[in-house]
């Protein structure tokens, strides 16, 4: 298995956020993201972080760690999650 997935919860019942543990760190993951994602890094923090967004998905994580958090739109969760996981399966070897 190339990655592990676990749903995380917060205060909002429509939140669809999942953690993915990857075999690469956040910085390497960021370099793989397709051009429809806009990304920014915050290097000033104690442990630098990144935020990436497409039209439908929001991803954040720490550049030096291997866990990312992905927020999907609740209306199209299954489709978007399947697409992301298929893409992850293709690019992460």
């Amino acid at each position, binding site marked *: 298995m190339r990655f592990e997935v676990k749903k995380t919860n*917060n*205060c*909002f019942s429509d939140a669809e956020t999942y953690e993915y543990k990857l075999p690469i760190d956040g910085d390497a993951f960021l370099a793989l993201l397709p051009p429809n994602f806009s990304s920014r890094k*915050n290097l*000033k*923090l*104690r*442990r*630098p*972080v990144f*935020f990436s967004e497409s039209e439908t998905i929001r991803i*954040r994580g*720490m550049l030096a*760690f291997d866990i990312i*958090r992905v927020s999907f739109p609740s209306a199209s969760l299954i489709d978007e999650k399947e697409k992301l996981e298929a893409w992850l399966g293709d690019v992460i070897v």
Partner: protein
Amino acid sequence: MNKNTVYLNNAATSWPKPACVPEAVARALSERPGAMHRGGIEDFDIFDSVRRLLMPLLGVSNHNQIALGFNATWALNAAIFGMKLSKGDLVLTTNAEHNSILRPLHYLEQRCGVKTHFVHTNKSGRADLSEFNKAAFDYKPKLCIITHSSNVTGAVNDIAEMSRISKAAGAAVLIDASQTLGYINVCAEEISADMVAFTGHKYLLGPQGTGGLWVSENLKLEPHLIGGTGVNSDMPTMPDEMPLHLEAGTGNEPSFYGLLAALKWAGENPLPKTGLADKIDKLAEGLKEIGALVISPSGLKTPVISFNVPGVSADDVGFMLSDSYDIVCRWGLHCAPRIFPDLGVMQTLRFSLSRFTTDDEINYAISAVRDIIG
């Protein structure tokens, strides 16, 4: 937990505990269980001992009127459902309440036609007294439920005046002291409250899984949880006398040993209130100076502070504080969703201190938020 973690989530569960607390829990688990209401003079009754030490904090004179259970939610359910409210009855409460009150009231509204009227808070989360006064006499509630302090902003309500108004309007009074007991005493009998719900795992410094409900001798609740009590087993109903009337099932003895140790420790080490109030003020000022949007109640407050960072969602700030800085705090709705329109914000981040929070930790938290603001 990372040993370098800065723990600012004491309004959820206080940590660390005094060393005697985990020691007492561990000792209880390795010793023979208690006699469950069957002991004689020479048998130590852990629950009775806890009740007696709670009396001065609650401001009550009969320890047997304190029923002990799992947590404040257990206590609030015992109180709300024990009132036997029925269709047409009205409960008056505030927008500052926790879901442990909101959800039982919603259930009663949906299932039994019990109505609820909510009083607004001001911008710092303190219940509007004049609105409460008007609503109490307009609606003639059967029950008034008042949080002693907002778990979101720390604003302490004037429960003495709210209790006086409620009684004058003919209502029973339930105080939720989850956020205050151990930090501020309740004086239940002095203010003529009928019930006080509390938890052991916040400012009382006890373990999770401990809480209780004090009930005035003038009020008889229907038991919400029904079962074995270890005594009167030949009767088909719960015993009439308190606290057994509300205490079905085996109690959480190890955790109450921990709470007893915490209560004794706190008695020997009185809370330095000024020091903690100074710390929360220092944190509030520090956050304001760097541009955070701080909700600062005036007057009496618990060591809790809610804030936002301009232009960054609370969720993102919380992520950065926890993952990048190892600060344990809470963000979102804090299980009190109704208060946010009154505060004029969608959600907040919350830092909550304890007597063990250090100046270095406060400075570190301010510095972390400064980095995030950029």
